[in-house]
């Protein structure tokens, strides 16, 4: 008997908590809307840095850049 009430209480608590997190998210979105930029741009000012950051994957990065360019 005790086990059953424990389970019921637990499930009820979980349901309440789930409802709360959904509500919190909705409230947060209403009060603090996150503006999303129309276009996500990653801006690196120095080509030298980009080459270095690409480590040994230079070819991959230039490929990606080319394919993104073609998408636009």
């Amino acid at each position, binding site marked *: 008997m005790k086990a059953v009430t424990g389970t019921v209480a637990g499930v009820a608590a979980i349901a309440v*908590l789930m409802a709360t997190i*959904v509500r919190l998210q909705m409230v947060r979105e209403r009060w*603090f809307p996150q503006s999303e930029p129309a276009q996500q741009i990653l801006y690196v000012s120095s080509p030298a840095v980009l080459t270095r950051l690409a480590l040994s994957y230079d070819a991959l990065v230039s490929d990606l850049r080319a394919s993104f360019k073609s998408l636009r």
Partner: protein
Amino acid sequence: MRTIGLVALHVFRDSVRDKVLYSIVAFAVILMAVSYLIGQLTAGEDLKIIKDLGLAAMSLMGLFIAVFIGIGLIAREIDRRSIYAVLAKPVRRHELLLGKYIGLVGTLFVNLAVMALAYYLVLAYIGSTLSEAALRAASAPPTDPRLLLAVMMIGLELALVTALALFWSTFSSSALLSAGLTFGLYVAGQFGADLKNFEQVVKSPAAGLIGRALYYLLPNFAAFDIKTEVVHALPLQPGYLALTAGYAFVYIALLLTASVMIFARRDFK
């Protein structure tokens, strides 16, 4: 209550001394130092890049720590059967689980504090090398106290990850599976915006509904990311932070409740 505290203290002592954690933290500290060098490569943007890199390093390393200890929490203990001796003591299963969670989050926070200290030291050093003009031109001081807010958000985010890792471990017998699921959810939690707008990708109202449902139910980790605002000295609303913190606490409570229920009924083969 007292029992939970005893378990937490013991777990903290055991995990804070773990060698693997030392390596991860050392790696993060090295990253901080290296970020200084990377800063030298760019023209004039060093301060911002170092701040970004430091926070990113803390976030990533912290993630590894959270998953590692979160899995270690239960999966390793069950695997090695060290849980047998404890459960034969006058400890209730839920006391054990909660004590373990608190102990491990404590370890996580200590490691995060060490990384944050290294972070601030590097920034202070850089700040001392900059000229007066450069300091005035920067949008935020090198050792900006608002950076601590970002660190705290990272801490909250990772406490949530730890709770998630704990949850998977309570019923999965495979440490690898639990780790994979936790990482997977962490990644998914970063794509909140895409989930919400899923209807734009797969053009069907049902997909949109599922996407939105998942967005609201799955842990939204992207919301904890205030790195951009802090590094670029953009405004931060305290209400937003409070709501996000509240979200973290409630979600953690949810995961812990579910974990306790599963753990209480589990057979330890």
